[in-house]
């Protein structure tokens, strides 16, 4: 019974109740008391930890598990926000209709493309920045803190500024493009400009965060690896390719996983990028992500049942992505 470690911790003689001389009044009574104390102690040692960890689990049950299950239950019904207790059983209809729902697949595709346009450059830029920050620089702390500033900015504030920058008629970006003779681009109107603009906001916000993670990992790489590489005549670039990158492999994997999860939940940026069209993500839904579509169905159109089904479908998709990630990471680990 290796798990009963508490038993091993039963009171040492003269430890738990010091000051009582042995053989006083009745040793029998004393023993009983000791036994009782010991039992209490055992219960305490055994159950207290559960009490200590329970707040998290209680909160999780109330605000995580219950909503999750309830959402699953609601997804099998036709429910409207105006009367949430009024549920009509429809079975799997909310799920089956997703297959023919052009808007869902459009949103899924947008989520994927925005995810790629934002994650890939973001991680590459972050790597470059981390590499530069890893050199000896003046005021290096300043640069490092500055990297994190976008991450500390609220999405809403940042997006509103970007909306102004990307404005078609009075935006600074079109003005700059106009200065070099390029016609104004309708950033909010067309598919690719819209998605690129939304991705820009995401890249701006998260690059510094990832750069700091890479930087931390780079600083853990032993210096002598670089020294010996230098002795072998490897250039800076070769050192980066053959020393830095392989050593960072687990970190890169971590950032890829985290960014993928983040990308699949993109919501605030596209929502605020065209505030008036709001959850429809542009006039032709050109940058409506899955998160946005879910929000639109649930809170704008008030169809809670449909929104719940979308939520669970997204959950399933995320699990698949997670499994693929795991598969790849296992392959990578095996190959290294």
């Amino acid at each position, binding site marked *: 019974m290796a798990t009963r470690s508490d038993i*091993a911790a039963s009171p040492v003689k003269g430890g738990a109740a010091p000051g009582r001389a042995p053989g006083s009044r009745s040793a029998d009574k004393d023993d009983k008391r000791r036994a009782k104390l010991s039992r209490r102690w055992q219960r*305490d040692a055994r159950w207290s930890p559960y*009490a200590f960890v329970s707040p998290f689990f209680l909160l999780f049950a109330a605000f995580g598990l219950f909503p999750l299950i309830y959402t699953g239950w609601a997804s099998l019904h036709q429910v409207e926000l105006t*009367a949430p207790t009024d549920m009509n059983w429809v079975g799997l209809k909310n799920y089956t209709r997703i297959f023919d729902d052009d*808007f869902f697949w459009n949103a899924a595709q947008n989520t994927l493309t925005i995810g790629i346009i934002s994650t890939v450059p973001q991680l590459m830029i972050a790597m470059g920045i981390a590499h530069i920050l890893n050199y000896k620089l003046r005021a290096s702390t300043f640069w490092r803190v500055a990297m994190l500033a976008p991450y500390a900015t609220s999405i809403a504030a940042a997006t509103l500024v970007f909306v102004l920058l990307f404005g078609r008629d009075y935006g600074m970006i079109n003005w700059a493009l106009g200065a070099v003779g390029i016609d104004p681009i309708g950033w909010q109107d067309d598919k690719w400009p819209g998605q690129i603009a939304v991705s820009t906001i995401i890249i701006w916000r998260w690059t510094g965060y990832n750069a700091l993670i890479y930087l931390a990992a780079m600083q853990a790489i032993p210096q002598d690896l670089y020294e010996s590489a230098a002795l072998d005549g490897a250039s800076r670039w070769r050192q980066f390719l053959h020393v830095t990158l392989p050593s960072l492999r687990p970190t890169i994997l971590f950032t890829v996983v985290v960014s993928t999860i983040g990308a699949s939940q993109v919501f605030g940026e596209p929502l605020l990028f065209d505030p008036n069209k709001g959850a429809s993500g542009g006039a032709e839904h050109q940058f409506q992500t899955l998160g946005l579509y879910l929000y639109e169905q649930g809170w*704008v159109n008030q169809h809670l049942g449909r929104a719940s089904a979308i939520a669970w479908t997204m959950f399933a998709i995320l699990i698949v992505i997670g499994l693929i990630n795991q598969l790849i990471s296992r392959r990578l680990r095996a190959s290294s």
Partner: protein
Amino acid sequence: MRARTLPLTRQRSGGGQPFARKALAVAAVVSLGTGLLAGCADDGGDDSSGGSSSGEGKTTITLGLFGTMGFKEAGLYAEYEKLNPDIKIQENVVERNENYYPALVNHLTTNSGLMDVQAIEVANIAEVVNTQADKFTDMSKVEGVKKDGWLPWKWEQATTKDGQTIGLGTDVGPMAICYRKDLFEKAGLPSEREEVGKLWAGDWNKFIATGEKYKEAAGKDSFFMDSPGGLLNAVLSSEKEKFYDASGEVVYKTNPAVRAAFDLTAEAAEKGLVQSQTQFQPAWDTTIANSKFATVACPPWMLGYIKGKSKPEAAGKWDVAVAPKSGNWGGSFLGVPKSGKNVEEAQKLVAWLTAPEQQAKLFKVQGSFPSAPAAYTSPEVTGATNEMTGDAPIGQIFSEAAKQIPVQVIGPKDQIIQQGLTDNGVILVTKGKSAEEAWETATKTIDNNLDK
């Protein structure tokens, strides 16, 4: 193994301690738990906090409002508190109705967290009447409230089929056309308000025709109208039936009036008469400031908005002409939920706030146009002028428009349908799509949004 060392050291520190710690832990868990439960508990019995009576024996009435409704700004609360020394009024304002309304629905469906008085936007009133009427008190039974005190259609909008009135109207938005005198003159059009009104009297097609003349003369420098959404809204709001028929069926796709309004707006967009903008967005605001469009469909409250966004030198360059057909844009209601703590006092307050005299005062300060015809003869309304419009007699113009607004059938999902037609429809025409393609996109979006 590390876990094992902890109890050992702890135990050596003294005999009584584990109990104290345990008690502490239990207390912590219990207090956390009860804290959580207390958050969910019904606080109906607790009168001491913000309830019916505070220390000095005053009753506090709470109002849930959205945007700037202006009661406070017009000094109405202070006046009421003076008249009723044992009443204290407290308002709770959410900036945008998009945020206010879902929260209101949530509170209504769970019957908790409601204020004594709740405001309802006209775009949502049909849905509230249809689905939440049982949560509201019948305002028609309140002393001093008379049905014929309000414009008939305004009263109808907040009344259920079996005659329960869930809210009293505060303001309405009779629509006129605000235009730039200077731009009209430059384009060789008449600029005097009577003549401008005659240019398009009675027919929106004439409005488009005027736009074409304007464009020929003004060229590319400015646009005849601000946005496709604004034009579509103006045309639709002058129809008796738009998205729902009298029996409550969704008919927006088959209603010829809706298609005609859509096509008219699309035509204006194709001809470049409307600027490709969405109203109330930063770029639209900038366009106003830069004096880039000649007309805007405007209810009285729009004058205030224009003033807020314009440069000072624009003052007096605007004027107000009669719209081709009268329509309504905007207006709210005040309802008293049954679950409130001071239902009777709240009803009295609402009846007072929406009485003609108070509506007239509100108009003077806030530009919210009265929904009580009795107010139209008051000096506050008849004498109203506006600096932006060169002291045009806006009170008279809008009173005239208010009387001609048709009784419009409004439905629970009007907002979703109109938003679809505008933001997923006519806006596309300004971006080079055909009217047919735009209609397809709009109807597909709307049908998906309406499908439960």
